[in-house]
């Protein structure tokens, strides 16, 4: 598949690296946050930091849907599977997220819970059709890109009169999380972490458009570049951010001209707002309660809302005390600042959210970058 290689070409990367090196000012630092876990993954997997000057630092943001799922939400899904005998369908990474009582969905499965890993919500619908005598719940996670398919599934279930299907909705919103980070005292008042700009995820903007970011650019004076997920996209976005910073601009720019418009996909937005409404507040693992940062199912579709259908009550559960995910997600700390990184907390035994999926900051550093810590300590 030529399409893939084209965007990863080593020579082009070197050219971009030279351009970045030529344009950065040596008398300052540049701290950019890539919001999305997909970017974190690309940066670590292709070794992008090796191509950046030492004063350009990438901070991994909270945009990994699996990592930000709070323990209490996983507990609800486990409760459905173990206590209510429901078939719980979910995306693969979700099954490893540690929950209360030493459980995870994977461990709940080993205890007899009927938990199925699916690639798409349509698979969950299929399972519901095939098991009319069982209740089926789709554990819906993800940012704006995964929301429209869930909305379609709920509409479809209603159109078909599918009585045994419902959704445990944990869909979250990108702009509210970015705002939460910008509003955090470390960033806003103390200025301990100068965040100089953001790389925004292109696939989210194909849905919501680039306009929601205009607010950050204006209100917080932070440049935003919307970028695709290939490592070259990321390099190009870094170059554009460096230029904005140098020129004192704070604008929303679009590196990913391939599919992003200011308005986004209005049809998808209408679809989402037909089925979902804003939650007043939602707990994010690592960030805590973030106002208006997630979606719930509207009253008109209440039958398909697992929370109402089973009278589920959400209980917040604290993360391990040593876990520094919150500070890492705000860019205040790095994975190696956490006392239990790589000892108690590893990808096999994740203690906190950033270690769960390969897109999380701690897992990415553990899997792709920990050798550098040894090199650093040797010199």
């Amino acid at each position, binding site marked *: 598949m030529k399409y893939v290689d084209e965007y990863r070409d080593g020579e082009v990367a070197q050219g971009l690296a030279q351009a970045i090196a030529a344009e950065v000012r040596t008398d300052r630092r540049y701290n950019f946050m890539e919001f999305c876990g997909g970017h974190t993954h690309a940066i670590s997997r292709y*070794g992008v930091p090796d191509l950046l000057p030492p004063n350009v630092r990438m901070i991994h943001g909270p945009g990994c849907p699996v990592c930000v799922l709070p323990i209490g939400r996983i507990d609800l899904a486990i409760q459905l599977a173990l206590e209510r005998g429901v078939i719980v369908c979910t995306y693969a990474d979700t099954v490893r997220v540690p929950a209360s009582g030493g459980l995870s969905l994977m461990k709940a499965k080993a205890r007899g819970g009927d938990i199925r890993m699916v690639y798409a919500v349509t698979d969950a619908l299929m399972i519901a059709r095939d098991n009319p005598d069982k209740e089926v719940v789709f554990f819906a996670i993800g940012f704006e890109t995964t929301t429209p398919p869930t909305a379609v599934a709920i509409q479809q279930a209603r159109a078909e009169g599918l009585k045994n299907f419902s959704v445990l909705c944990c869909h979250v919103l990108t702009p509210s999380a970015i705002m939460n980070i910008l509003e955090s005292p470390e960033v806003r008042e103390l200025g301990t972490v100068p965040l100089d700009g953001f790389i925004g995820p292109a696939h989210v903007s194909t849905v919501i458009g680039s306009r929601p970011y205009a607010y950050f650019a204006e209100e917080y004076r932070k440049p935003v570049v919307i970028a695709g997920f290939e490592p070259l996209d990321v390099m190009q976005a870094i170059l554009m951010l460096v230029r904005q910073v140098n020129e004192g601009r704070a604008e929303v720019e679009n590196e990913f001209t391939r599919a992003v418009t200011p308005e986004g996909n209005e049809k998808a937005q209408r679809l989402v707002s037909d089925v979902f409404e804003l939650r007043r507040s939602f707990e994010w693992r690592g960030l805590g309660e973030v106002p208006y940062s997630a979606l719930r199912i509207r009253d008109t579709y209440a039958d398909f809302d697992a929370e109402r259908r089973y009278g589920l009550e959400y209980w917040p559960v604290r993360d391990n005390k040593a876990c520094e995910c919150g500070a890492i997600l705000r860019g205040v700390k790095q994975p190696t600042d956490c006392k239990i990184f790589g000892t108690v907390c590893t990808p096999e035994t994740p203690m906190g959210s950033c270690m769960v999926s390969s897109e999380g900051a701690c897992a990415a550093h553990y899997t792709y970058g920990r050798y550098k810590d*040894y090199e650093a300590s040797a010199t």
Partner: protein
Amino acid sequence: MTNHVKKGYARPLDITHGRVDMSHGGGGRAMVQLITDLFARHLSNEYLAQGNDGTCLPLGKGRLVLSTDSHVVSPLFFPGGDIGGLSVHGTVNDVAVMGATPLYLTAGFILEEGFPLADLARIVESMAKAANDAGVKLVAGDTKVVEQGKGDGVFITTTGVGFLPDGVHLSGDLARPGDLLLVSGSVGDHGVAIMSKRENLSFDAPILSDTAALHGLTAAMMASGATIKVMRDPTRGGLAATLNEIAHQSGVGIHLEEAAIPVKPEVEAACELLGLDPLNIANEGKLIAVCAAEDADRLLAVMRAHPLGRDAAVIGRVLEDANAFVQMKTRFGGRRMVDWLSGEQLPRIC
């Protein structure tokens, strides 16, 4: 008067429409019939025909190499192969990469009640062909039947026996700084073939499993005179797991060049789609070898001359590293670690 006495008074096994039932594992006549009419028919040889509780084998010269492997792949029939051939290749390869000549196999079958005999026959035929091609004889076997829902069609455990000439010693702890690392061909084919079938992905050219017996390739490599220190077949966990094992066993670091690692474009594309890394994906017909740097060219030429090593390449080198890290220079120009997988990437692929 016509003679109504027929041979054995037995109703032949209905392979076309029949299914495995509990009696096929019960130790009675039905079990004997399944063994003689299906297994022995395809797999028999002078040793299996001994028909005793154990098989008596002549001892060859040198040392014995033993390896055992259970196969639980789902689906049982996948693009490029099936569980039957796979169960032979998997074990033959484990013996072959020790530098040994694989000679004998044993096979244990766990069949699920209700499994179509026609499918079982296909699997056994495929085993017979694979064993024949690999020059190994199936010398002992066992069959058990479990109730419906307690198995998944067929599970097969095979054990392989081979002989290793005195003086030959390959081992994971022999890699030394300066050695070079070779791979016999494209990585990730098997796991992606299974996955694309499971997820119903369709590609212009279907991705086929690379399942194959490597005894011929290993024999040619051993005969080349090159100083080979380690050979492994990177099955579950893929290249990444195998290289980490070697790095740890030998207490060395390994540096890979991503651009040198052969990956088929369609495998690359499927991995992209499924969010997988080809380096973590299982192979069933590939091997990696660590050899002295000065012998690498000669070894590479021998590998490329063999049909199963046509795309062989030097993909990295061994160097000193007390932490035994496997690192890679990415095609993009950066560096990263190549780590063991955490959790499972693809369940039930072999």
